[in-house]
């Protein structure tokens, strides 16, 4: 685990107000930055991380970009306190920002640390190509590695690919370019990339979704709390996605290159609920997996049609109008925060929940026969007062089946 000093360059231009990343691009970036910070300090406690903004707008229409927000440090508090106060302003100035990052790295305290720059770019790139290439060569000469995360922007992809090729040279693979399309989950996407995962696998373990760290809760210290937080975060996300799915019904079912099956099933839920007459047509358009998931949903609905405690049911939100669903959403979140254990038991009955939660656990293949069979078992049983006992049975069944298949 080499010693590394990393400067994270955050794009805080006006393009970060865009909501195509939930909730805004800026917040997604903040989550991603915290994820990277934890990964770096976890892999070696002596690593240092600093923070820098790439754009700044001064009132006299001069752009003073590349402001170092936090010097290289291993103290999480210093970085996080500034991270959440970053203003959104101005236009991106990539070259200037990188030069300032390079300078900050030159004056690092850990002289033996390998310097690294991680850049987030979410706005269009305007740069002189000569200067761009010269910058790449200079970084290469000084052995500064760079990782570029381009999110929400496709226009500058080729330029960055060229930049990375120049810096990497013929045989090096130290520098990476990650492109994240709009609508994806930024922290979860980068968790699987070489930015977090170093070669010996010492990055974050696979089971931990980015959202767990976004709460500052280490899953090792308090797994139950982390689990509860993750489940309620999942709920929120699904509710939001269902609302979005209601807005763009037909398109979502077909073009979802990077979202997982669970979220596309959410949109199918919405389709099923709002356009019951068009069921046949929608069903044939779905892939086989989605059809199976749809079948699960439908059988689940029949089983729990009269169940009043089941607050996660999508029918409730879909049936009501927009404002009413908002009220229900807030009441749901209130209920969630108050009755964690209750919603645990109930939510474990919900197949999508089980599916989502199982997906995050290591060693479980959600689409495998055993897991799918277990999930179907869940719906066939009535969700009533015995729900908790049956949940235990189900869980033990699921784990038994997992062990069998292993």
């Amino acid at each position, binding site marked *: 685990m080499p010693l590394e000093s990393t400067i994270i360059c955050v794009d805080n231009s006006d393009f970060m107000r865009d909501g195509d990343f939930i909730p805004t691009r800026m917040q997604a970036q903040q989550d991603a930055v915290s994820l990277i910070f934890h990964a770096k300090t976890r892999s070696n406690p*002596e690593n240092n991380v600093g923070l820098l903004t790439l754009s700044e707008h001064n009132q006299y229409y001069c752009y003073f970009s590349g402001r170092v927000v936090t*010097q290289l440090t291993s103290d999480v508090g210093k970085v996080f306190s500034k991270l959440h106060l970053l203003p959104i302003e101005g236009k991106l100035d990539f070259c200037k920002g990188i030069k300032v990052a390079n300078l900050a790295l*030159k004056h690092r305290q850990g002289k033996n640390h390998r310097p690294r720059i991680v850049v987030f770019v979410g706005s269009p790139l305007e740069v002189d190509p000569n200067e761009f290439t010269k910058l790449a060569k200079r970084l290469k000469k*000084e*052995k500064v590695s760079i990782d570029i995360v381009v999110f929400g922007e496709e226009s500058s992809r080729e330029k960055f690919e060229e930049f990375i090729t120049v810096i990497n040279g*013929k045989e090096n693979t130290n520098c990476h370019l990650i492109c994240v399309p709009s609508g994806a989950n930024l922290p979860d996407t980068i968790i699987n990339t070489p930015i977090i995962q170093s070669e010996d696998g010492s990055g974050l373990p696979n089971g931990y979704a980015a959202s767990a760290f976004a709460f500052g809760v280490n899953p090792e210290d308090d797994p139950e709390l982390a689990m509860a937080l993750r489940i309620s975060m999942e709920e929120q996300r699904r509710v939001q996605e269902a609302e979005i799915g209601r807005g763009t019904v037909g398109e979502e079912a077909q073009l979802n290159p990077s979202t997982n099956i669970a979220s596309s099933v959410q949109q199918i839920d919405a389709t099923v609920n709002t356009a019951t007459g068009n069921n046949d047509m929608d069903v044939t358009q779905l892939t086989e997996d989605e059809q199976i998931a749809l079948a699960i949903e439908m059988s689940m609905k029949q089983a729990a049609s009269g169940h009043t405690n089941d607050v996660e049911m999508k029918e409730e939100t879909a049936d009501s109008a927009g404002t009413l669903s908002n009220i229900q959403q807030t009441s749901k979140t209130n209920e969630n925060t108050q009755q964690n254990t209750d919603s645990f038991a109930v939510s474990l009955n919900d197949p999508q929940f089980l599916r989502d939660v199982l997906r995050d656990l290591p060693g479980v293949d959600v689409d495998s026969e055993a897991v799918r069979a277990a999930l179907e078992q869940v719906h066939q049983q009535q969700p009533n007062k015995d729900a908790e006992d049956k949940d235990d049975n189900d869980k033990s069944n699921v784990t038994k089946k997992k062990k069998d298949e292993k």
Partner: protein
Amino acid sequence: MQHSCSRSCQHVDETNVGLWNLHTKIDKYNLQCYNEKHDGSGKEIFRAWDERLDRSKVVESDDDPELLFSIPFNGAVKITGLCVIGENGPSHPNTVKLWSNLPELRFENARGKEHQEISLTYDPSGTLAYQVNPAHFSRVTHLSLYFPSNFGDETTRIYYIGLRGEFLGEVKSKIVIATYESKPQLKDHKVDDFLKGNYEIQ
């Protein structure tokens, strides 16, 4: 370097082997070569005197003829001589600039005043040893070698760099003088720049 036996003898000249062994005191893990074409090739040219003629290990510069070596040692050394083996052609470096104890030196500050500058000439077999001034190099913990140019080629190639000198001993980390006080009084310590920098204890 010539020994006194007749030309057809077999024995190896032992006199130099012992002297050119400062390479054993180099902190190889933290040794860096800047602008090398192949990552890690810069470490391999610091080796034993016996292996100086091995042509398989070479460092080549990338795109321009500059090369910069940043060499930390496992202690303090005194450097008295330098030997550089290159090609018998234009890729041989023609100048070397040396600095001692400046670990942050990079290409920008290498344009400035050097501690010593030596003009090199073709040496494909390691027969030349250049004298290093004792002025700056009598107690060195970090050595920087900068080769700014060569005899005309686009890239510079070096096969071997030898350092001659003595090892002076390990360097303990810097806390040495400690005063123990039962009750610290600020007036006992005259400090001009109070809380000047931001130093973290790690």
